[in-house]
């Protein structure tokens, strides 16, 4: 299981590409799908490499993505 994952608010995305570029482990890529405004939102191309660092969330100017560490109900973290 990867250490972290992201949540993407597809409709807010304007496909600026910041998250794709600045993800340290390159887990994101812009998809071929469209949101209703015609932008290509990102998707996890290499989800197993996500550390949940949330650099994508820090960079995203549209508040459309954030990353987080996967935590279980008992408080432990994944990996």
């Amino acid at each position, binding site marked *: 299981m990867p250490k972290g*994952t992201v*949540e993407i*608010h597809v*409709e*807010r995305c*304007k*496909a*600026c*590409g*910041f998250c794709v*570029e*600045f993800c340290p482990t390159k887990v994101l890529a812009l998809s071929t799908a469209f949101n209703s405004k015609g*932008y290509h939102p990102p998707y996890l191309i290499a989800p197993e490499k996500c550390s949940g660092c*949330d*650099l994508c*969330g*820090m*960079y*995203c*100017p*549209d*508040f459309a993505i*954030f990353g*987080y560490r*996967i*935590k*279980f*109900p008992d408080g432990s973290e994944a990996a």
Partner: protein
Amino acid sequence: MSVMPIVNPVEPFLRSDRMPHIWCPGCGIGTTVNCFTRALIDAKVDLDNLAIVSGIGCSGRVAGYVRLDSFHTTHGRAIPFATGLKLANPKLNVVVYSGDGDLTAIGGNHLIHAARRNVDLKIICVNNLIYAMTGGQTAPTTPDDVITSTNPYGTFDPSFNLPHLVEAAGAVYVGRWTTYHVRQLSRAITEIFQKSGFCFIEILSPCPTLYQRRNKMGDGLDTMKFYKEKSKIRNGAPTSEVGLTKQGAIIVGKFVDRTRPEYRALMHDQMMESLGERYVEQGLEVACSN
């Protein structure tokens, strides 16, 4: 085995009912808001004693998108509004969040006087080197030889070196980062919440639609890469040396961190010296109908 869902750390700070916002794809203003909210969390700022005051322009729209007591005021006059707000309720943490045009052109006079007085205000100056909202006119910060809508043949006005200006005017904290430097920027904003006095952070941000596009400098992502390539972190650099040019190095860092008596302390001390016991510092709360 199940996964605990969490919320985007920035979401509680947003007026979600107003999303998506009006800023262009690749604009860096939203990125500055992420850093700002991260700093509010790290500095443990009491959100019920925080007020955001902005002026007019793209950066000025931040006030309307954050779920805080916020005031979208007139062009150039966020700082005097914020001064009145702070003096009437000194318990408030007052942040002025505005753009380079608003703060340094029409607002220039207020900028230097508030810095001179060392009013306890946190100034977040998003600098996209242009007047963006009105369609890309020249700003006092626009570097030389840049195409804008009011300099269609290229700018020739010398531009402001903002850190130098505000340091000379009296600011006690002066820093500059770009929207590429998300971690350093968050830390800088956290620092100014722990400091009293006139604090100024300049944040270089892309305006891909106007500045970068008209000057064939790519889109927002290209600009972020440009910032990464051209930035040199020089904490403590003399502000006279941090002027910006169209393609040259971008000096970033914390340039000034000093202590001067804050405005209200100066007022208090003077009044105490002259009036002693007769001085009544704060009036009664304005009587309200409930």
